[in-house]
Each structure stands twice: as C-alpha cells, then as structure tokens.
C-alpha cells in the first residue's frame, strides 16, 4: 500500500517509493523536492523564509531555505542517498497579494526562490525543473519512483514537471 505523506508549513519529510510526498497550498513558500532516483528515495521541504541568518529563533531548520536544504541533504545521506546522484525540483514562491505596497513581505516569494537557487548552487545541486512565481497558490505531489512533480492550482491549470 502506498501512502501520501503530508508535509506542513515549515516541515521536512522523507519518503521511499511507493509512498508519495504532498504539500498543500504553497503561496510564497517553496516546496523543495530532492531525490535519488537510483534508490527511489525522495524528500520534501516546505520552506517559508530565505535565510536563517536574520532569524531570532532559527531552531526549526525546515523553515528556512539555507538550513532546510542542509537538513534534507543530511537526512537523505543518512538514508543511503549519494549526493552526486541527487536531483532537485522546486515549486512555489508566488506573490499572493496584489497591491502596490512596497513592503518586504510582498516580495518574499521571489526572495525565497533566489535563496533556494543560491543554496543549491553552493552544494552543486541542479534544479531540473521549477514552477515558481506568479500570483497563485500551488498544491504539489511528488513521486520518488518516477521523479514526477504534479503541480495543481486553482484557475491556473495542472501540470507535471
């Protein structure tokens, strides 16, 4: 029996095929799927913020792009993944509210996406597919078996990347 493992805001989960990983309602947050196809192991980190550096309270590693990716790599490694085989797909990073304020939180999605890319680059990991930006939410389901990432939206279609 395969399970669909739910990943909440600021959470990290691992899954082995035939299980799948899902996170619902990504707005400015980003879902980072890192997977090792050879052993059919995948992980999903639902990050909220770009960097733990400005945080007063950085205990929860999965909340930030920098520490979240590090956490995922460590946990993947402990479960037999090989770093050179790892591939990455990401989704989210939208700008949810439309108004003309110049407040920082309005650009948080964009800043999240940039931080994810930078951190992945630091670990020499490649993003092979991304569905980020826009002004709409995304619900994503990741299948570690095929590496398929299903992105569902309200009014902006459904796609597999």
């Amino acid at each position, binding site marked *: 029996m395969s399970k669909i493992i739910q990943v*909440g805001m600021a959470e990290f989960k691992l899954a082995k095929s035939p299980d799948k990983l899902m996170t*619902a*309602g990504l*707005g400015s947050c980003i879902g980072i799927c890192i997977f090792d196809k050879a052993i059919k192991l995948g992980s999903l980190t639902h990050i909220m913020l770009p960097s733990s550096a400005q945080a007063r309270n950085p205990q929860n590693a999965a909340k930030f792009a920098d520490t979240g990716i590090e956490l995922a790599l460590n946990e993947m490694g402990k479960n037999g993944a090989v770093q050179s085989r790892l591939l990455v797909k990401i989704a989210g990073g939208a700008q*949810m509210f439309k*108004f003309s304020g110049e*407040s920082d939180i309005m650009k*948080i999605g964009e800043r999240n996406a940039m931080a994810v890319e930078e951190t992945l680059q630091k670990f020499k990991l490649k993003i092979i597919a991304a569905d980020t930006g826009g002004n709409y939410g995304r619900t994503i389901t990741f299948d570690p078996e095929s590496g398929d990432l299903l992105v569902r939206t*309200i009014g902006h279609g459904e796609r597999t990347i």
Partner: protein
Amino acid sequence: MVFDFSELSGLELDALREIGNIGAGNAATALAQMLGAKIDMSVPKVSILPFAEVPELIGGADSHVVGLYLNASGSAPANILFILPINKACYLVDMLMSRPLGETQPDNFNDMQLSALMELGNIITATYLNALAMFTNLDFRPSVPALGIDMAGAILDAVLAIFGAVADHVLVLETEFTKDEEDIVGHFFLLPEPGSLDTILSSLGVSIG
C-alpha cells in the same frame, strides 16, 4: 517580553478574548448594515498554534477561499486577515449588489465584483481596527487591504512569513461570523506581531508576570 505564548495567564487570555469580542462585534454590525441581514458572531477563540496547523482552522490548506489582509503599523503592529470560503464570498457579493443568490460564480469574478469584495473587506477590517484602537487607546495605522482569491494555505503563508523569522507559533484570535444561525460566513483573525502582545496587554492594564 512574552516570547513563549504558552506562558500567557488566564487573565491575559480573557483580555485577548475581550479584544476579539469588541473588534468583531463592531465588524459584525457593519457587515449586517451593509447586507441588511442579521449577522451573529461566535465567542472569540484564542489559540496558540504551530504554523502547520493554522490552515486547518479554515478548512485545510487546499480549500478555495477569499482572503483580505491588512497590516496595521503603530505602537503594536498586528495583522488582520478576514477569510471566507469562496462560495460564501459569492453570496456576499450577490447580496451586496442586490442580485439573485448564485449569480456570482467562483471562477468569473469581474472587476465590479472584486471591488465589491474589496469594499466589504475594507469596511469590516477598518471597523475592527477602530474598535481595537478605542478599546486599547493605542494607535493602529492600517495599510491598504490586499485581496487574494486562492488556496487557504497559500494566502496564509504570505502572512505567516512575517512571524517565521521570530517564532514557530502564532497567536490567533479567531471569530466566526454566521448568518441565519448555521451558515458560516467567514473567519476573522487578529495576529499580533510578537512584541505587540505586551503593548496590547499592558494598555488594558493586564500586567505580564
């Protein structure tokens, strides 16, 4: 400074509930006047929740909702979020525009309907904030409200990101508006920024241990 919301005393929680009561009471009256209908409200609930559980309050991260958000700056910065299920939002628009219920459909909001929703949110949130300001004697300067129509989780996370840098939990003051007894119209959230809680509580003369 209260860093850990779980240290709040019973008295402090009561004071917060009272704030919710007064703010939402005024907002419910404003809503009733606009709609020409009777609007009831629940006793406010104060919850301290981890981020991951907040979307559950409004039917799950996946549910299709309309969210109106505004940020109030001043001596006690806070965030206000009014969230209602999409089908209820459609009804409200129909009622506001005096049209038969069911005419507005979730997938085809036009500018006129969006602006009706915006106006509705404007009045409700401004009323809430005014009541809060009168009650606490603090000054709250509201931002222009922002409107989002999408998944509940997606709307919430942009707002929760403000708290993410300093906390893993959020204090939610929640009131439900109902019309004709069972119909849940919407949820009203007041999310004080972490440092603001002290300011609000001391303005009410509730000391913090």
